[in-house]
């Protein structure tokens, strides 16, 4: 048969048939491959790259920390500190805390967890965590007094020792072997031996691709039922694999087709696809959610003037920003509390200006009184971070409506984090304003909240408020003896922070997760954890 005849004999349906046949054969090949028993495949909110949960506050590394390390204390759903690795006693004068490690604690390499390990881990943590640094200034000594006991002695009252040791986010108190915890806190650890409910499988780790955790068969959970990071961490699966998927649509398709069991954060615009799938459950697992906020730079004009900072706060409003960021009333909430709504210290003290916003006419009046000269505001917009990119765009328009001159500068997040560290004038690469987000446990007390620090150029977080009164109030909060007193001081701190415009909370939002119906027992808490959860075959 000639080529011409062969060519003429060809018909597109042959190609279609061949493709379908090949696909079916390939499909049969895959279907025959054995599935791994009891594996949860999860798409987390980002890929893990930094494996040291003390050097970084990245949430994904914190989540990794909860997989492979245990924490000294846990925090339950009532936000109360509870024993986890250790129980404690407090002396009558409230200055000495004696901790006793429970029985059965063993590192992944078989070595028992000792008080020396706990002390070394706490000291490293104390060098990195903002709240812990404040606490360590009040610590006279922290020493092991036996294999299983250690003592923390305060030189002055510090009322939130247990809350800090039990906090679930920011930097929790992950306990590492002393040999690892002795690594300088500015250097990443390279030994990932923990004593937690899962073991990190280093051989399968591919940064930006996947991380694999296998069940720690030697882990002895507590007897109490799990509640947030407290209680028994009973592992019911053999392995958890975190798969990195940079494309949200692909992740939605994968969870919809059953290739993935859990998607930690789902984009709001793709929710209808997930909610329509009867094999999936869409729910908010983190009950407190996130706070989104604007930070102003106190060093550069025009925000070096408190009157103009207040005018900016009057110009902004939570509704329009939340509408752009979330656009779904089910998952967004106006909130005037700097400590997050629904938390023990939540208060609306001083929040009237932002809660009643946007008030462009009022802001115009305030600007006029303050003598605003039209100095442009450099507002940084990180275009590559979907949870922050919309806020500056809306804010720019609201500020312009109030009479501000706004220079909205789009950039990637890396450029923003570099530039926000600059204390230089705007003309030399400085800035005036940016937005970011926090999970509520990171801001829920004046000790934890990174913005509520008046240490100026040397000690404060980016924006550098120089506010000795704020620091004095925080010290009073730390020394307060009763819950009532702490609440009163926290409300005063917030009212003051609003008065001087330390920062501007622009609302709260929650991000739903998508779970395969095969998963049951997933805990509702601010950190996604994989103990307690079961997977049906």
């Amino acid at each position, binding site marked *: 048969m*000639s*080529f*011409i005849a062969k*060519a003429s004999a060809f018909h597109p349906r042959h190609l279609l048939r061949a493709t*379908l046949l090949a*696909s*079916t054969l*390939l*499909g*049969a*090949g*895959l279907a*025959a*491959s054995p599935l791994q028993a009891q594996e949860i495949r999860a798409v987390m909110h980002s*890929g893990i*790259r*930094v*494996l040291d949960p003390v*050097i*970084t*506050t990245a949430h994904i*590394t914190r989540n990794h920390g909860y997989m492979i390390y245990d924490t000294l204390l846990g925090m339950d759903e009532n936000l109360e500190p509870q024993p986890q690795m250790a129980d404690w006693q407090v002396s009558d004068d409230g200055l000495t805390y004696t901790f006793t490690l429970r029985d059965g604690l063993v590192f992944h390499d078989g070595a028992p967890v000792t008080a020396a390990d706990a002390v070394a881990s706490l000291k490293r943590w104390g060098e*990195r965590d*903002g709240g812990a640094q404040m606490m360590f200034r009040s610590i006279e000594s922290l020493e092991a007094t036996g294999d299983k006991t250690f003592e923390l002695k305060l030189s002055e009252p510090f009322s939130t020792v247990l809350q800090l040791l039990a906090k679930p986010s920011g930097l929790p108190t992950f306990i590492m072997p002393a040999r690892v915890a002795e690594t*300088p806190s*500015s*250097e*990443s650890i*390279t030994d990932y031996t923990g004593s937690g409910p899962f073991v990190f499988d280093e051989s399968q780790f*591919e*940064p*930006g*691709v*996947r991380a694999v955790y296998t069940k720690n068969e030697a882990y002895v959970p507590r007897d109490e039922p799990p509640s947030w990071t407290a209680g028994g961490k009973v592992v019911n699966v053999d392995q958890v694999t975190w*798969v*990195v*998927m*940079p*494309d949200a*649509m*692909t992740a939605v*398709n*994968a969870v*919809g*087709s059953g*290739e993935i069991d859990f998607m930690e954060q789902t984009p709001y615009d793709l929710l209808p696809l997930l909610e329509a799938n009867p094999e999936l459950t869409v729910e908010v697992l983190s009950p407190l959610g996130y706070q989104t906020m604007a930070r102003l730079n106190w060093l550069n004009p025009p925000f070096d003037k408190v009157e103009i900072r207040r005018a900016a706060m009057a110009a902004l409003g939570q509704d329009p920003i939340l509408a752009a960021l979330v656009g779904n009333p089910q998952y967004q909430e106006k909130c005037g509390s700097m400590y997050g709504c629904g938390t023990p210290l939540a208060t609306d003290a001083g929040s009237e200006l932002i809660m009643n916003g946007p008030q462009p006419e009022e802001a115009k009046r305030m600007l006029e009184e303050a003598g605003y000269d039209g100095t442009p505001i450099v507002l940084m917009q990180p275009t*590559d971070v979907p949870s922050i990119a919309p806020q500056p765009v809306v804010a720019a328009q609201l500020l312009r409506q109030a009479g501000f001159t706004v220079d909205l500068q789009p*950039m*990637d*997040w*890396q*450029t923003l*984090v*570099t*530039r926000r*560290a600059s204390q230089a004038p705007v003309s030399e690469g400085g800035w005036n304003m940016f937005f970011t987000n*926090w999970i509520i446990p*990171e801001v829920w007390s004046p000790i934890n909240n990174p913005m509520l620090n008046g240490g100026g150029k040397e*000690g404060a*977080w980016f924006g550098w408020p120089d506010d000795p009164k704020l620091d004095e109030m925080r010290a009073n909060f730390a020394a307060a003896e009763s819950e009532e007193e702490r609440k009163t001081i926290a409300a005063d701190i917030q009212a003051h922070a609003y008065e001087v415009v330390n920062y501007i909370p622009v609302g709260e939002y929650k991000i739903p997760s998508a779970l395969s119906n095969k998963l049951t027992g997933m805990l509702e808490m601010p950190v996604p954890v994989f103990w307690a959860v079961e997977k049906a075959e």
Partner: protein
Amino acid sequence: MLAYILRRILASIPVMIVVALFIFLLLRLTPGDPAAIIAGDMATPAQLAEIRRNLGLDQPLLTQFVTWSGQLLTGDFGQSLISRTPVLTLIGQRLEPTLSLAIVSMIMTLILSIPMGVLAAWRHRSLTDSAVMAISVLGFSIPIFVTGYILIQVFAIDLKLFPVQGFTSISEGIGPFLQRIFLPALALATIYIALIARMTRAAMLNVLGEDYIRTARAKGLSERIVLFRHALRNAAVPILTVIGTGFALMISGVVVTESVFNVPGLGRLTVDAILARDYPVIQALILLTSGIYVAVNLLIDVSYAFMDPRIRY
């Protein structure tokens, strides 16, 4: 020929040095701070400075360049600043998915595009020609992510013939490997099928008008021999050039295809490294990409001599 190849290899050395210097300076002059990625949002300026010092990023540029060059000369590409994984390990982990995607995609491209181009040229101005050209225009015009999502919707979600995403190593069996790589390779191939079919058609049309083709037909040779032995071989030089550069592009990483199908290839590694300002990883990847281009161009040039006996080096 051997002397020519050697000369070309030697000539590539200064190219690589210039690339290394350029990329080193470009990265250092781009705003960004790996320490900020490592430390997270709560770090204070003092903590960031401490991490920078530990990573050696506080050193003068010249010192950093000399250190890096010295490491390169001993074959050490350094460690990722972020994950502390050796750069070569990272690249090694991503090489198989990228090569697999490139090779399978190129095989699909060649199987479909060359016959399409030959057919279109042979049936010039016919319905077949128009159909091939229409397919080419579509292949060019539809972005890969759209093609990818359509393929996923039809073949993975509706027909359930393929998985939605992921990559399986060929070491785990040819069936699972092909099943995972088929859709991303097809999505990637669409654009190259369009490109190479058009190029083949154009080159073939030029050649089919030549006297020696008329002579071949007059000698009574079959159309198959006329088309494939006489015409296609003479039209091969521009087609080979496009195939070569296309293959180099695929090996350097195709980030959109890799992202849509979640293939952990070099493209994603490159984008992740750039977003994190992971200097050693970016530098190694750019050097690798440059090396690939130099090698592919050399191979293309050498292959000309085999396809066209008039070309001698």
